């Protein structure tokens, strides 16, 4: 499973409680505007990325712009995830 799929799966499971919808989440869907993730949810995503994907998110990177969609998150961590995989 690649990075983007793992993030999709996490969001489907944690925020939609619906793993069946993994393939449906458009990668550029704004998760904040769609009411799927709120500010506490952003922290959960950061904790997931740090614990499960072994990347480090600097506090200053924790802005909605970087975490608003599956595409944005994948892009944010791509320099680091490329190293570990």
């Amino acid at each position, binding site marked *: 499973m690649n990075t983007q799929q793992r993030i999709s799966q996490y969001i*489907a499971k944690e925020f939609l*409680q619906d793993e069946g*919808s993994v393939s449906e*989440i458009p990668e550029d869907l704004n998760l*904040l505007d*769609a*009411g799927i993730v709120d500010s506490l949810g952003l922290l959960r995503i950061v904790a997931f990325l740090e614990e499960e994907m072994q990347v480090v998110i600097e506090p*200053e990177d924790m802005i909605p712009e970087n975490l608003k969609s599956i595409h944005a998150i994948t892009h944010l961590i791509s320099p680091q995830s490329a190293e570990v995989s």
Partner: protein
Amino acid sequence: MMVLDYLNLAAEATPDKTAIICGEQRLSYKQLDQLSEKISIGLKNLGVVPGEKIAIYMDKSLLAVISIYAILKTECCYVPISPDSPWSRVTGILNNCVIQHLLIDDQLNHETQTLFHNAKVNTVSARQLLETINTTRQSVLTRPGANGTDPAAILHTSGSTGVPKGAVITQKNLAVFVSWAISAFDLDADDRLLSHAPLQFDLSFFDLFAAVAASATVVLATPADTVNASRMAQLVNDTGVTIWQSVPSALTLQVVSNSTYKQPEIMPNVRCVLFAGERMPRQTVLNIPTLFPNADFYNIYGCTETNNTFMYQLPADVSKAPDPLPLGKVLPHIQHRIVDEYGVNVSPGTKGHLLVAGETMMIGYIGLDEAGISIYNNSNCINGFYQTNDIVSVENDGNVYFHGRLDNVIKSNGYRINLMEIEDQLWQSGKFVEVAVLCEADDLIGNRIIAVLRPESEHTCSVLDLKIYCAQTLPKYAIPHSFYFSSTVLPKSSTGKIDKHQVAQLWQSAVGY
């Protein structure tokens, strides 16, 4: 003294003092006075007349605050509308208040511009007014005979039929509130007040107007700041904020973020932390002294219709505070009663319905009569007392405690949400034969919203589609957190209505509690 009198005083006495900080931008009292004057002249040139309701469709910014003062200077009433709102809510507010002019920052995208055009609303760029108006007249004190009963602001809450309800707040309401705030927290010119809440939230009256009345400085936190705990702490420390006011969930975000990053973001300059809007989680109560080592903590209770009515100051050792925190004691300018179902005062220790009255209470909800004329409807008030629908009791310690609601209204993330409104929207999707929306207590955000739905046979439903559907029709904070699809008929009470209590049990067993 009305709000504008305070601005005039500050602009005369301390013209160069910083009134507002937003990001890298600073605005002095003189600038705030002159720029708001320019926009006011621009509005008058456009034919705006005193008493008109003028909408502000902007994110929180220097220009938005300048616009609020400009509207008040034009002897009009400001109606903040969040650009985040779904369009159905925007039109509800526009119709409700008969909005003719709407102030925007600079330009709207074509689609939104067309929507306003079709709604017959004139959009006015505040930025362009600033650039084109050259003259400013000398400030004058509020016109003689300025009426305390003039509407100053209309804030919209969740309505029971899906139509937002606009609480009309008068000049006098604001003036009484501001003078209470100054004396209750000893605000002075050295204070820096954090503006955390959005402008359409009544919490913003404190940051915007009490700051000016004390010739203090207000620090605007933008949505990009409030979502990131590190940025918030940095903003507070860099700008020297002394007074923090927010909903509890904002403080919870700071506490949770600290445990994520394992490095406490201490804010030593803050001397007062005020939280209002919903129940404060115990975990947050216990952890806030670490973040604010030099602050006193206040739990404040009220609603948009009445503004703040009760306050509880936490003891120095916060762990000694009752759990949950009490609403506290009634404020000096507020009268209250706790009554039974017959309207008779209950004795201490007995639960009853809280009624409040006082000089910060709205004149009513804005509405239209049959001829389309604006009226103020105060059917929520009986004998001058506003019915909060909150069930409370006064206990031996003299404090008032909250026990629940008489209706379907809940609090989540500090927002007041009517569950019926969410049910209405889900019905309108046409996908379901049965709909029940309920809530479950949540440690961090107060309440989680749960929608239990029985789809039409043959229909398959996706949580993702429903989230997106709700996001188009409901405010973001009202989108259910969880959806559960039932293939069987929802449980009913003996009267044939959906039994929410049994539905809650169905949901709990489904998720494995």
